[in-house]
């Protein structure tokens, strides 16, 4: 029951116009080979959900450089002037979401919650047009779940069934996105036989992973 496939075959499954969650934080823990292959295959009109767009030439920044993105849900683009330029030129529609809210919205999408009730953003521009709810005298924002057609995940280690392990700050949005993508493609530095990742160390459970790409393959 191996989920291993080639880099090209995995990325060919992603059509132009797809919504795609991509793990990573300023390039750290992003699935760099999957991103490079998206660029190589010339994908267009992608709707990207990701914490940030790293920097030009790095990580998700490469998709911005390649003009592959028309929509972006993200928390921070401060270190990528290219993204800012294209946002101001209205080439990319950008929705800015507080980082903790972004994480919870993706979690809600992946775990069947109807939304997120958070204090973050109340009374700020983030709250504009959104419902609020009062609970025990305190006001909270109601934020909607996020799901995507695809989730592209970076892991340090995977077994052939798709159980995944992560490492230090390369973990970030990867585990939560692995629950929220309709189709989940994981890229792992190391791929091992089933049984080599013990049950207590499988951070993402293989049942949610559809395709696996090895570092060399």
């Amino acid at each position: 029951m191996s989920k291993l496939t080639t880099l090209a075959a995995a990325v060919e499954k992603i059509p132009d116009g797809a919504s795609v969650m991509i793990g990573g934080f300023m390039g750290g823990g992003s699935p760099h080979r999957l991103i490079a292959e998206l660029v190589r295959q010339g994908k267009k009109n992608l709707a990207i959900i990701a914490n940030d767009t790293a920097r030009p030439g790095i990580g998700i920044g490469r998709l911005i450089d390649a003009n592959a993105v028309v929509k972006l849900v993200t928390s921070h683009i401060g270190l990528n002037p290219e993204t800012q330029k294209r946002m101001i030129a209205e080439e990319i529609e950008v929705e800015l979401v507080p980082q903790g809210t972004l994480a919870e919205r993706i979690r809600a999408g992946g775990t069947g919650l109807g939304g997120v009730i958070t204090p973050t953003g109340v009374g700020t521009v983030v709250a504009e047009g959104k419902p609020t709810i009062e609970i025990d005298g305190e006001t909270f924002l109601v934020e909607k779940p996020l799901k995507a057609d695809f989730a592209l995940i970076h892991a340090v280690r995977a077994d052939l069934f798709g159980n995944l392990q992560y490492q230090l700050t390369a973990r970030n949005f990867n585990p939560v996105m692995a629950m929220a993508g309709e189709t989940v493609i994981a890229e792992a530095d190391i791929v091992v036989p089933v049984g080599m990742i013990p049950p207590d160390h499988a951070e993402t459970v293989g049942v949610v992973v559809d395709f696996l790409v090895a570092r060399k393959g």
Partner: protein
Amino acid sequence: MDAKILIAQRVAQELKDGDLVNLGIGLPTLVAQFLPAGMRAFFQSENGLIGMQALAEKAAAFEDLTDAGGTPASFIPGAAAFDSVTSFGFIRGGHLDVTVLGGLQVDEAGQLANWMVPGKMVPGMGGAMDLVSGAKRVIVAMTHTAKGEAKIIRKCTLPITSVRRVDLIVTDMAVIEPTAEGLVLKEVAPGTAIEDVMAATEANLIIAADIREMSLSA
């Protein structure tokens, strides 16, 4: 003394032994260097680690361990790594004792604006909105003015980061505590007169009865 160093030194004195602390990118990260001897704080990096510390030598850099600015970092024994969901669970859930952030403006209500200048600079809020809403104590660390313009003003003209009143403002000129009554000037920097602070501040300041000079050692 360099303005940033002065601010970082003063902020460091606000930390207590055992505190869980988040330092924003830029000026706030300097604070870790000035912890009083023997004091132990735990630094959280919102990209998923508690127990972060600066990299001792460049050769030890590791691509899967960076701070929230993407700079290679290291960790203390007993450090723990986790995903972004958990990271903001700590922040929003009141587990974070102190957050130190930069600021563009703070106003008389103690509200902070630090994430965008409409039409000019739109970096996004990153973790700032969660940090200011969720931390037990919010310290703004910033230069008192920007290109001669006051940053401590009557009412924020930039989009605010949170409706929450921040707990302390530390600048190169003063320490100011936002209260329900307004901004209280508690300390002035060495060699700075109260009048200098007033002149560089647009907001009304209440002068504390026990106003004193900033002490920069623990």
